[in-house]
């Protein structure tokens, strides 16, 4: 018998999973510290820790696009999207059409400003359209997480959630449309450029509708048992996410639409625990770490000017659109500025759309995709802080002192 049969070899060969576990512990602890001492949102630390330990930083954790990671991200995002949909009252759009108007204006302005900017930087029209479509989306993950964490409530919070849900839907659809045109450009027939978006919208809506009905049924019978119900729900979300990918539909659209449809059809209001229970909450934390791991700032060194201009132009488009219609839609100047600022974050949805496009068009991934990735990293880090500051400035977070 030698030393080596029962003692580990030096240096230790450590599985990357160990670092991942450590990341979770450190991330959550740092998050707590950020919240207590700097009053910053916790998710900033999850992303930063992921960024530091991932390929972009010390490279302790393996490369992101492993399928396991993708499943975590899809699931957690699914939870957050379904949660967002559930908090959004579509009937409000009928009672206050100015909000629908603000949403359309904001998304259109963002699209054309980003599109114009990219054309000016000599990027091909169709590629510019893909990027512009992705840029429309506000991060539902950051919005839902920050609203939950800060327990915000009020006009800005409600509108932020509604407009985020809507601009994500626009982004997914227009992304699919422009990708279809990209295909058309590379030489397939007309029918194959028109059908994909139709299939996407119709298919996602049908799947979402089925999900909504099943959800209500199960909730009716199991709703009293919160814990059991949350397990079933996680299973359903996983099922819907994987089913959507299998059917080549958009998981983002399916889960978001499922939330919206469930809420729309429901007679009574329902409140659920944040992220539908602690299992969901763990997934959400892992997702933000994963987003940090996936962070790729290489585009920043090549085209820092474009990245910077893109961020500014996009933010201005959103802010000004909200400001223009603020008075008619019934909010004051301070609230409008807060809402405009809170619409700026980019994260998971944009990330997934970018990765999906890069997977099909490698040229996109090495060009404009990198620019987008840099924007996403920056707005993912700044996003939670902006949303929190905006909600606080709008007076919608609980007062800390009695």
């Amino acid at each position, binding site marked *: 018998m030698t030393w080596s049969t029962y003692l580990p070899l030096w240096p230790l060969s450590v599985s990357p999973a160990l670092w991942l576990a450590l990341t979770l512990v450190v991330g959550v602890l740092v998050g707590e510290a950020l919240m207590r001492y700097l009053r910053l949102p916790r998710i900033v630390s999850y992303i930063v820790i992921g960024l530091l330990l991932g390929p972009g930083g010390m490279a302790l954790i393996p490369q992101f696009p492993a399928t396991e990671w993708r499943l975590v991200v899809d699931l957690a995002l699914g939870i957050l999207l379904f949660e967002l949909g559930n908090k959004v*009252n579509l009937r409000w759009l009928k009672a206050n059409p100015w909000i629908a108007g603000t949403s359309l204006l904001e998304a259109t302005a963002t699209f054309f400003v980003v599109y114009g900017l990219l054309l000016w930087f000599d990027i091909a029209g169709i590629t510019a359209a893909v990027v512009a479509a992705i840029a429309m989306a506000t991060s539902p993950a950051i919005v839902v997480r920050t609203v939950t964490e800060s327990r915000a*409530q*009020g006009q800005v919070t409600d509108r932020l959630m509604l407009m985020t849900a809507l601009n994500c839907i626009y982004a997914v659809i227009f992304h699919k449309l422009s990708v279809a045109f990209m295909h058309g450009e590379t030489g397939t027939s007309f029918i194959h450029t028109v059908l994909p978006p139709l299939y996407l919208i119709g298919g996602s809506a049908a799947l979402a509708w089925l999900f909504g009905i099943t959800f209500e049924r199960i909730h009716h019978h199991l709703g009293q048992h919160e814990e059991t119900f949350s397990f079933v729900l996680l299973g359903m979300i996983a099922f819907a996410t994987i089913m959507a990918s299998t059917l080549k539909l958009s998981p983002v659209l399916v889960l978001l639409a499922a939330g919206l449809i469930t809420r729309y059809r429901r007679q*009574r*209001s*329902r409140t659920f625990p944040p992220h539908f229970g602690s299992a969901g909450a763990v997934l959400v934390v892992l997702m933000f770490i994963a987003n940090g791991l996936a962070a790729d700032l290489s585009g920043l060194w090549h085209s820092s000017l474009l990245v910077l201009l893109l961020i500014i132009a996009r933010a201005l488009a959103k802010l000004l659109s909200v400001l223009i219609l603020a008075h008619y839609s*019934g909010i*004051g100047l301070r609230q409008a500025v807060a809402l405009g600022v809170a619409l700026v974050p980019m994260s998971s949805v944009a990330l997934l759309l970018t990765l999906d496009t890069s997977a099909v068009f490698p040229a996109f991934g090495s060009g404009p995709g990198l620019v987008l990735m840099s924007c996403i990293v920056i707005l993912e880090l700044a996003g939670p802080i902006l949303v929190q500051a905006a909600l606080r400035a709008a007076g919608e977070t609980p007062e800390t002192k*009695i």
Partner: protein
Amino acid sequence: MSLMPFAPSRPLSVGVELELQLLSCNDYNLVSSAPDMLRRIAKFPHAGDVKPEMTRSMIEINTSVQQEYGALVDELRSLRKGVSDAGHFLNVAVAGGGTHPFQHWSEQKIFDAPRFHYLSELYGYLAKQFTIFGQHVHIGCTGPDEALHLMHMLSRYIPHFIALSASSPFVQGHDTGFSSARLNSVFSFPLSGRAPFVLRWDGFEKFFGKMTATGVVESMKDFYWDIRPKPEFGTIEVRVCDTPLTVEIAAAIAGYIQAMARYIMVEQRTAPEEDDYLVYTFNRFQACRFGLEGVFIDPRTHEQRSVREDIADMLTRIADHASELRAEEAMERIREILAAGNGTSWLRQTYAREHNLGDVMQLQAELWMGSN
């Protein structure tokens, strides 16, 4: 500061103030939307007045001075429409009821106005716990002595008003067992209770002068009495009612008080006695706790009966005065409450059916806003 002179007003004119709860349409908890609602409501011309209240999750609607129940209910309905429209526009639900069933007082935000901040400093958590919603009814009086007379005579019937309007069984997530739990919050204020037994206005001025000299009060606003004179309006103000679940009930209760005031002024004409107040807090507690089933002890005959029976008896006695004031419909509604129960019974029945206070609150808001 001395007391304002009593401005004479048209006798038996009536005005109603209702404090309303503002709710988020997501979870039907209170939401601090008063500034948004007030800004929206101010954009359109409307009858009466809409004002901020202590915390940002409540607003108050005031009618103008009315003579009759019919015009009063019309004005309240138009105020309700204005407020409901603003609510729909802003995704804010509006509801009646004396308490919010599950709000937490520490999450309430004080409305940004000097008086509210002053009160918040003074009373601390009481100010936030004061997130309760009441109906105030003003009755016009020809002069100050008449006002004091009416105030003391009406005091005997305080349990009627409490039991008819009671709609606050739930507080902080639980059924308190009270018909009007809201009043328990009012009673914790040092200057709550009843006005001193003074029948002449000069005597009342003397009392007020002594109180201001002690530094305890600055104005009539600092007294949280069940009924208090309001010299600048020339009215007495009945303040014990919960905000009912609909404006129609609010108007009916105002009509009932108005008819009773006419009965007191025109027909009864007996002088109030200090001993009338011997049973005052007992009767008031009974109405708060048990509503229409509460025990009512007549201060003069010492006869015991239920509040419901005493109201039924009063309805026959004031019938002529009600028709004189064209308030028959109001009396009809009061009779309906006696038969079908007050807001608290509606809330308890709804909770028994829905098992969820959020759902109760949603239905309460739908009831107040009307179907649109």
